[in-house]
C-alpha cells in the first residue's frame, strides 16, 4: 500500500489555502473592497485606493489563474529550502484575473516561461517538519500554455 500523504502546512499562515484534495490548486487569500470593488493580495483592512480608503472590506479567495507579467530565474538557493531542485529558482509577477499583481516563486525551468502566458498556482513542499510537509505557493505554466 502506498504511504498516506503527509499533512500539509503553509510556510506562513494567512496567504493561501491548502485544499483537502491534493490535486486541487490552492487559492490566494485576499480582500475585496465592498465600496469600490478593488481586490487585494494579501489581506488588508482598508482599501488602498486614495480615492476610496473604505473600511468595508471582505475576505475573498483569489486565483488560482493569472497572466505572467514578468519573470526571472535566480542562480542562488531559495532561502529555507533543503531541496536540491531549489538551488536556482524562478520568480514571477502574475496578474490575477481579479486584478491584483502578485510576486511568487515559479516552478520548472526558465525556458518554459514567456511574458503574457497563462499560469496557475500550485503547492510545493519546501521541507518536512514533524511528519508534515511545509508548503509554499508558486506558479507554473497553465495546461496547454506554450
Amino acid at each position, binding site marked *: 500500500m502506498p504511504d498516506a500523504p503527509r499533512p500539509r502546512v503553509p510556510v506562513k499562515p494567512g496567504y493561501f489555502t491548502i485544499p483537502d484534495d491534493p490535486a486541487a490548486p490552492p487559492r490566494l487569500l485576499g480582500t475585496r473592497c465592498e465600496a469600490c470593488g478593488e481586490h487585494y493580495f494579501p489581506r488588508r483592512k482598508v482599501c488602498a485606493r486614495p480615492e476610496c480608503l473604505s473600511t468595508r472590506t471582505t475576505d475573498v479567495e483569489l486565483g488560482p489563474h493569472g497572466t505572467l507579467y*514578468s519573470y*526571472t530565474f*535566480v*542562480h542562488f538557493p*531559495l532561502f529555507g529550502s533543503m531541496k536540491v531542485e531549489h538551488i536556482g529558482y524562478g*520568480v514571477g509577477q502574475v496578474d490575477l484575473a481579479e486584478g*491584483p499583481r502578485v*510576486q511568487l516563486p515559479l516552478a520548472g525551468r526558465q525556458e518554459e516561461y514567456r511574458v503574457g502566458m497563462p499560469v496557475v498556482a500550485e503547492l510545493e513542499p519546501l521541507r518536512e517538519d514533524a511528519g508534515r510537509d511545509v508548503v509554499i505557493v508558486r506558479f507554473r505554466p497553465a495546461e496547454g500554455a506554450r
Partner: protein
Amino acid sequence: MKNVAVLGVGMSRFGMWPDRSNADMGLEAGLAALADAGLSFRDVNAAYTGHIFAPAMSGVRVMKELGCTGLPVQRIENASATGSAAFAEACWAVESGRWDVVMVLGFDKMTAMIQQSTQGTDPANLEDAILPAAFFALWATRRMHERRTKPEHLAAIAAKNWNNGRLNPMSQRQAEREVTVEKVLASKMVAWPLTAMMACPIGDGAACAIVGRKDLARRLRPGRPVVEVKASHLGSEKYERGHLFVGPVVGPARMTRDAAADVYAQAGVGPTDLDLVQVHDAFAIEELEYYELLGLCGEGEAEACIARGDFALDGRVAVSTDGGLIARGHPGGPTGLAQIWETTLQLRGEAGKRQRPNARTGLCHMMGGGSVCIVHVLQRA
C-alpha cells in the same frame, strides 16, 4: 527652496572595512565636511544622523566623537534613502528658519547588517524569500519584452559606472583597467538577465553634508561657487492597479515620475537644464528606467541613448558621475549623502578627472525600500 546652501561635504571612502567602526568612519566624514565648510563643530546648530542597521543609539553616540556641545541630534531612517531623507529634513529645517547650520551625517556597516539580517531572517516570511536582485530582474525581463532591451544595454550602463568609479578616489570599486560591456556580461549570473557586475556591492562607509543659510556660504568661503539646494521631494507609494504588496523592493515607477515633476516645478528647471544626475542604480536596469522617468529622454528612447553614450561623462547629461551605487558603493545610511558630496564638488568645479565642464545644475535621486522616493536639485548660484 530659496535659502539653503550646501556649506561643506566630506566622505570616508566606501569599502569592506572590517577593522573600522561607524564612529571612526563618521568622524572622518564629519571632520572633512567641517574643514570643507570652514566651520567649527561649535557652529553647528543641530545634527541629523542616518543609519539603517547600526544599533539604536548609534547616531547620537557617533556624534559625540566630534565633540559634546549639547546640540540637538536626531536620527532619520528611510532604508537605502536614509542619507537623502536626513538631508531633506536638514534642508527644510534651514529653509523654515529653525536652524542656520545643520550637519547631516550618514554611516553604516552593511557588512555587519547582512550578517544580522540573515540571522534574523525567518525563511517562512514570504517577503524575505526573494533577493532584491530578483525583483529588479523582473523589471529587466518586462523591459526586454516591451522595448526589445538587450543585456548589452544594461552592461553598457554598468561599464560606464565602473569606469566613472575609476576616476573617483572615493569609489569603493576601482577597476584596474577599463571595464568593457563584454566583461560585465561575462560576470556571474545573479538573476537572469542581471549579472554580478550590474549590481552594487555591499560595503561600509560614511558621508557628511553641512547645510546652512545661503548667505553663510558666501561669508565662509568667499570666492567659491555657492551650491544651493533648489528643490527637495520625499514621497511614498501611491496605489494604482498592478501595485505589489508582497515582495517589492521599491514601489511603482510613477514614484520617480511624480518626484521629478515636483522638483522641476520647485526649482524652476526642466530635465534639459541638468548637467549631471545621480540615481539609485543598485542594479543597472534601475538606471535605465530612471533615464525615462526623470525625463532625461523620452519613453522608449533609453536604449538608443545608451548606444549613443548620451549619459557618459561627456554625453548630453552625465549620469552616475562618481560611479553610482554600482561602483562608488552603497553602504546604506551614507549613500544619499555621497550623491550630495559628488554633486557639490561637480558644481564647484572640484571633481578632478571626472569633472563635467561648467556644470551648473545637478539632480540626486534615491529610492528607499518600503518604499520612498527622494529627489533633490542642486544648483550653482
